[in-house]
């Protein structure tokens, strides 16, 4: 009984590296299979359209594929892909059609030529090479270990265990390399480095955008849906599209200060201060004590080196002495003096 307890952990310990290696190799095989399946494309039309659209960049977005974006051109790209899939065109032919119109930058994967091709195949070629090298090492080691055992005639336990150990170790290492490379291939293919940092990178909640976008377009003369769509887009960091939604809301109701302020803020955040400033001045003409408009206008004027900045910021401090930004604004004004 006691001997059995002692033996089991040893057997387990011996089995663990082997099991780990098998698990790692299975993972590697799954990764490769998935990559191949994505490349050859699923059978269902929607899934095929989606798979191709996922490799095409949305031209008016930042780091988003045509499969994920609600921008009009992204929808146009999806419709075009659907039309071409129905016409029996191959994914590569369809992608070429987009490259003809938009240039190679429209594709969301490294080009399959030159350095790009090398990048794709280098890791794939590395795995069998590494495995072969490790097998040779294992073979050489077993030969020396075998002769050492014969020469010294050690205890039977050591002769049974020692030659196996490096072999299993080699297998585990090879598997680790394979997993690391699979992760590398997948990361390079997914384009994780392509997405901007911030909220846009984290969200994929497109159902919400779908609904809001449909609502706004089905009631194009109502302010509310455009504001909601603008907020959702802004939240995702898609400021240019957000600005368009807010523009629409402001045009429908030019006196809607909250909408005008959101628009000004979206302009300011997307580097269009020259558009934000007159809009903020309009808001302040209607409501001279609009705290946020005073703050944003003052900061934009300050950034542009306009002398009115200090006057605007002083008005902000008069209206909102307790504002969280008040202390920083005071420091800014003192620094300017």
């Amino acid at each position, binding site marked *: 009984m006691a001997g059995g307890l002692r033996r089991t952990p040893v057997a387990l310990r011996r089995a663990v590296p082997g099991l780990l290696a098998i698990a790692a190799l299975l993972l590697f095989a799954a990764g490769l299979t998935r990559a191949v399946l994505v490349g050859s494309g699923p059978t269902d039309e929607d899934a095929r359209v989606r798979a191709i659209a996922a490799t095409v960049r949305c*031209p*008016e977005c930042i780091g988003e594929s045509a499969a994920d974006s609600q*921008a*009009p*051109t992204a*929808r*146009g*790209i999806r*419709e*075009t892909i659907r*039309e071409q899939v129905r016409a029996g065109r191959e994914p590569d032919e369809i992608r070429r059609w987009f490259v*003809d*119109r*938009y*240039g*190679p*930058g429209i594709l*969301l*994967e*490294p*080009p399959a030529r030159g*350095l*790009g091709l090398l*990048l794709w195949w*280098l*890791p794939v070629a*590395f795995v069998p090479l590494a495995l072969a090298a490790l097998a040779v090492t294992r073979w050489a080691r077993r030969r020396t270990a075998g002769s050492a055992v014969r020469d010294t005639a050690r205890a039977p336990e*050591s002769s049974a265990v*020692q030659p196996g*150990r*490096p072999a299993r*170790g080699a297998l585990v*290492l090879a598997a*680790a*390399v394979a997993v*690391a*490379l699979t*992760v*590398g*291939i997948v*990361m*390079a293919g997914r*384009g*994780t*480095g*392509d997405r901007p940092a911030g909220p846009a990178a984290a969200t994929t909640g497109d159902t919400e955008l779908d609904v809001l976008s449909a609502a706004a*377009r089905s009631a*194009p*003369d109502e302010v509310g849906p455009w504001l909601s769509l603008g907020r959702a887009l802004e939240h995702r960091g898609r400021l*240019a599209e957000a600005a*368009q939604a807010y*523009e*629409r809301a402001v*045009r429908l109701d030019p006196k809607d200060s909250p909408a005008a302020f959101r628009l000004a803020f979206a302009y300011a955040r997307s580097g269009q201060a020259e558009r934000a400033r007159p809009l903020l001045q309009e808001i302040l003409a209607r409501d001279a004590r609009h705290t946020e408009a005073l703050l944003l206008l003052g900061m934009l004027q300050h950034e542009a080196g306009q002398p009115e900045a200090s006057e605007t910021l002083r008005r902000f401090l008069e209206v909102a002495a307790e504002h969280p930004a008040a202390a920083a604004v005071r420091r800014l004004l003192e620094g300017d003096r």
Partner: protein
Amino acid sequence: MTGQRPLIARRAVLVGAAAAAGLAATVPLAHALRAGDGTPAAPANRLASPLAGTGPDGTFFDLATLRGHVAVVTVWASWCEPCRREFPVLLAAQESWYEAGLRVVGLNTADRPASARRFLREVGAEALPMVSDPDSRHAVAWGVRGIPETFVVDRGGRLAARHQGEVTREWLVASVEPLLR
């Protein structure tokens, strides 16, 4: 034989480091490759894509009928504010160069006919030939990146210039006037 474990550990460290180095090199390189070919030059001087269909008012128009003219094709939507700002510029350009052979044509994309008709009435552009493109497929065939975008098609039907964003009188002078001579 007791040296076996440190040997494996050392090899594990080596292999791990090599894998990490490989990863570190592959991912940013792949990213740089993709980022590098970001915005290509406009493929100018190729034949413009066909453009034919009904406009928001139901009238059929085919760009091919304008062969021999210089056409300015503006891609717009009623919900696009820069489009509203640029229509007066486009209408003024057509007025100045109509005799010389300039025609302004609209591609009304991602829009509803009723909204588009109201927009055209408001900006006084109801007389311009228009093609409706509710699902943006025409826009994509033209390689449109965003709205508004403007294309200049020469008398032979070739793309001569394109402009992303609101057009200005200066841009039109620079890209249209030489084609009218």
